[in-house]
């Protein structure tokens, strides 16, 4: 046993296992949320107590507009993600397997990728107004890079022995991709999808917030301009929950798809 292992069992030893710690944490958080505004530490105008937010949420959930907004956000998220992922995987594999393209496009990719997607907001507004397409422009742009970068890593990681073996068996390029490259790149693709799904949600809600496209973000903007503070918080909570659901789904999918694959340790997504 090491010092780390010793520390780890302190909680278990005093009868406070991790799941109980989590529950305590949630209880504390909710308790603070209720108590702090009541004590006047933070004015209730800025932070309504929990029960009022819950009431506002219950009210919203009863309205079809809520579900429509949720649907709109998720729709943009899903379509944008699919487009971005398909394009990024195709482009990534093409570039990754062609050395000439890899060197030629490297600088361009490094230049384009840090460009904040929000820089495209004015353009999106001009071209598409509050249409779904303006949302998609932003979502696809931001998510594309997440997946592309990971795909490029994945293709680069290819075991040269495996590739040479395939070549000596005269695999066609398509065969090479299917049987050798794709399995190697798969964990990276999954990581990219996980990162991209979080980014896509951010851009979806952001574009709704700024541009006014229908969705949760727009409801937030409306609540804010209308001074409906409790409703504002209710929608923020909903957005957070949607985010958690997406993160959980992404991690679950990643685990299932890679159950047979040695896991790739990557960055922790924001």
């Amino acid at each position, binding site marked *: *046993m090491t010092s780390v292992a010793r520390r780890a069992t302190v909680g278990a030893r005093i009868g406070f296992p991790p799941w109980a710690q989590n529950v305590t944490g949630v209880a504390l958080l909710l308790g603070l949320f209720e108590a702090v505004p009541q004590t006047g530490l933070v004015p209730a105008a800025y932070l309504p107590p929990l029960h009022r937010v819950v009431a506002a949420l219950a009210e919203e959930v009863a309205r079809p507009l809520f579900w429509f907004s949720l649907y709109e956000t998720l729709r943009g998220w899903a379509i944008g993600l699919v487009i971005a992922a398909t394009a990024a995987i195709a482009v990534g594999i093409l570039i990754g397997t062609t050395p000439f393209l890899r060197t030629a496009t490297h600088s361009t990719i490094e230049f384009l990728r840090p460009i904040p997607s929000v820089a495209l907001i004015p353009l999106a507004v001009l071209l598409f107004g509050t249409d779904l397409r303006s949302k998609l422009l932003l979502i696809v742009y931001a998510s594309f890079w997440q997946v592309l970068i990971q795909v490029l890593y994945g293709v680069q990681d290819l075991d040269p022995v495996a590739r040479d073996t395939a070549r000596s068996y005269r695999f066609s390029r398509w065969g090479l991709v299917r049987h050798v490259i794709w399995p190697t790149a798969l964990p990276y693709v999954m990581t990219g999808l996980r990162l991209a799904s979080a980014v896509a949600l951010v851009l979806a809600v952001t574009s709704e917030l700024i541009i006014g496209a229908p969705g949760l973000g727009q409801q937030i903007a409306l609540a804010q301009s209308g001074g409906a503070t409790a409703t504002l918080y209710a929608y923020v909570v909903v957005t957070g929950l949607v985010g958690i659901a997406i993160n959980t789904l992404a991690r679950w999918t990643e685990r299932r798809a890679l159950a047979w694959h040695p896991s790739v340790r990557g960055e922790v997504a924001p």
Partner: protein
Amino acid sequence: MLEVEHLRKVYGGHGRSVEAIRDLTFGIHAGELVCLVGPSGCGKTTLLKCISGLLEPTSGRTLLEGQPVLGPPANMAVVLQEYGRSLFPWMNVAANVDLPLREKRLPKTRRRELVENALAAVGLADAGTAYPWQLSGGMQQRVAIARALAYEPHILLMDEPFAAVDAQTRADLEDLIRRIWADFSMTILFVTHDIDEAVYLGQRVLVLSTSPTVVQEDLAIDLPADRDQLTTRSDTRFTKLRGHVYEQIQQAKTAGSARADA
């Protein structure tokens, strides 16, 4: 110098308990080079962790210079097997050796002196500014030894330090240990699974049984003090001692499996 009294360690939890060490009692006098050898899984590393204060025993105790060991004692230095993971890669060799000395709050000139001497003693006088990952495995282990040396401990514990190194390098390092032991009059407790190494190095060899572990035998090595890889290892006395230890360990293994079946 070091007294281990009825050390016992039981790993428990979730209903099962594993008695890694049943009863270990032995002593080491100042200036001795004692080797601990035993079959794999006999709890050598557990024992070392208990003696060095990194692990709490279930019962029994360790006394270092008369004081009970309750946490890592101040006058002890440990060299582990995983040299790659015990040196800090963001510091160069000299800084690594220097680090424990800074904690001791020694003046700068004294620290520099100790570091230089230690590195020279292990044959790495010019490697001060290199980084651990630039060095070979054997050299990295030398740095770990230098770090322990510079610390000026009263006793040096070594946990299979040469297990992860190639045979050639191992031979050099074994000789290095004997040299250091002679030059610095150190007390060394050397844990290994390599019987030849234990007999070659030690003045005494403690043979451990399989788990639950006890001291099977305390063997005095009556080889000459001046040892050499070539001649000593082909000495008849060496071969006899080595054979004896090997027998003991084989006995320990069969007794252990008999106990396990019982």
